[in-house]
């Protein structure tokens, strides 16, 4: 399969993730969209790894998966803390710090 297909799909994923971060207001969905952006990078890495025929990209992708999991865990932790403080679960309401 041509490398271009991998790249197109991955670019679409990246753009979709970015749009999601821009338009969604629920932090949980925003976190999902961030995952999408990271996985777009992963897909590109795997595609290139296939193209070059070596394992570097695949190893990189596995490392990224670990990192992404950590990120989501921390994000969820903060969201739970927000929930416990009975704060709105909405990124637009987080405007205490501005100016």
């Amino acid at each position, binding site marked *: 399969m041509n490398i271009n297909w991998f790249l197109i799909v991955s670019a679409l994923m990246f753009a979709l993730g970015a749009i999601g971060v821009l338009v969604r207001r629920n932090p949980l969905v925003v976190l999902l969209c961030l995952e999408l952006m990271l996985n777009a*990078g992963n897909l590109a890495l795997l595609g290139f790894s296939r193209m070059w025929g070596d394992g*570097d990209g695949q190893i990189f992708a596995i490392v990224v998966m670990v*990192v992404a999991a950590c*990120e989501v865990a921390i994000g969820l932790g903060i969201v739970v803390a927000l929930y416990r403080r009975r704060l709105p679960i909405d990124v637009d309401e987080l405007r205490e*710090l501005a100016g």
Partner: protein
Amino acid sequence: MTSVLASVKGPEIDWAAFSPLLGLFGGALIVLMVGLSSPRVIRAHGVPALTIAAFGATIGLLIWEWNEQVSLIQDALILDRLTILITLLVCVAGIASTLLAWREQAAREIAHGEFFSLLLIAAGGMVVLAASRNLVTTFVGLELLSLPLYILCASRLRSERSLESGLKYLIVGSVGSATLLYGFAMLYGATGETDYAGILTQVVKEGLMGDALFLAAIGMTIVGLAFKASLAPFHQWTPDVYEGAPTPVTAFMSVATKAAALGVIVRLFFTALLPGVDDWRPAWIAIAVISILVGNVGALGQRSLKRMLAFSSIAQAGYLLVGVVVVTELGAEAVVLYLVVYLLANLAAFAVITVRERETGSDAIGSLRGLGARSPILAGAMTLAMLSLAGIPATAGFIGKFRLIEAAADGGYTWLGIVIVVGSMISLAYYLPVVAAMWRPDTEPGVDPATGRAVLAGGAQEAEAERGGWEATLVAAVMGAAILVFGIVPQPLFELVGDVLKGFGTG
């Protein structure tokens, strides 16, 4: 199964050269364990003391390895002068932040062990980042520094602002990480290599200089790194996060993250991406100029000191970039020198803010009123810090700025030097009011200067002094003295950062 394992050979590791990293990560583990112990005194005082010991041990190991240039783990990391200097900066910032955090509410809220071990892990991540010679380790280092900081920012679990800053930092920071990752993926796609040396040879060999994939990769890498160094227009998280995060964490972030980010920018762009210099230089120049303008202009009229320093740090990052874009040894030296100077001034300032915040509950500029009369040491340190950040002669800041301008002119970018000077002129308009506020007497005794409300009568003064803590005063005094001494006798600084590119790219 055994046969497969036998056929996989682990990489050679020079444990001596690897030891500074082990100091930090080992320290993090020990601190985490000790933090589980039940006596409160061990948790509240033993843990920070151990944290300082870990940072101190790392500095000791660094000095032991001072003249080494060793490539580690198959060139994934390198120990050279740049790594050592950045690690040194990170450790000094770590010790200072630990001292500032000793009585911090945040450490109590998420437990001391966790708080301080996260601090050590973030420091380790910074070292990995500055030492990395491979895209994978660069990314790992970056995340290793960012993830603990996300938590530390949100560590005042009962404060809405702290949680908000943590979530904002996490989301915006992750966008940056994803961008950087995508850039790295494209870099790997363009060259088929993940280590810097390999990328460099491949780019030169294949003549990839004008290649669209390679250039797009550079662009996304620039954006991702500009995020971490809080450069405009990727700076917007900075003021909010600096303001909301616990002050010791802000102090650590503002200094150490910047050092690590500038370290990796210098290493990546001076080696692997060097062939594309004509393409990436204008982009960095634009970012530097925008940062200097946005940072200085945004800091005007801020009421919160932390917010003001956040904008100021954006401008300072812009100054630092000037040393990068000239791509000379002098430029790299100027960057590291300026990092040292910036560290001294910022830590002094944040130490004073920490004390005042505990005493008055506010970080407004007005909360400094009358500080000169009550605590001349703190006020003196803050004055020196502000003057140094503004680059007034006889402070270390002047030496740093002078070196940057010299590097800019030497590299043929005199006009960037002038931009620095113009930025510094604007900056006087927000640094000097801070100095003026401190040496102005209190309006009326018995009134809380920050809120204008009357303070409770009797005994409040002693309690305030107790809450402020001597550790923060110590940090302020040491940093303030260093600003003055290096401002008058800068020769040791020049010698410290001399040969910063020694061993650069070897191995």
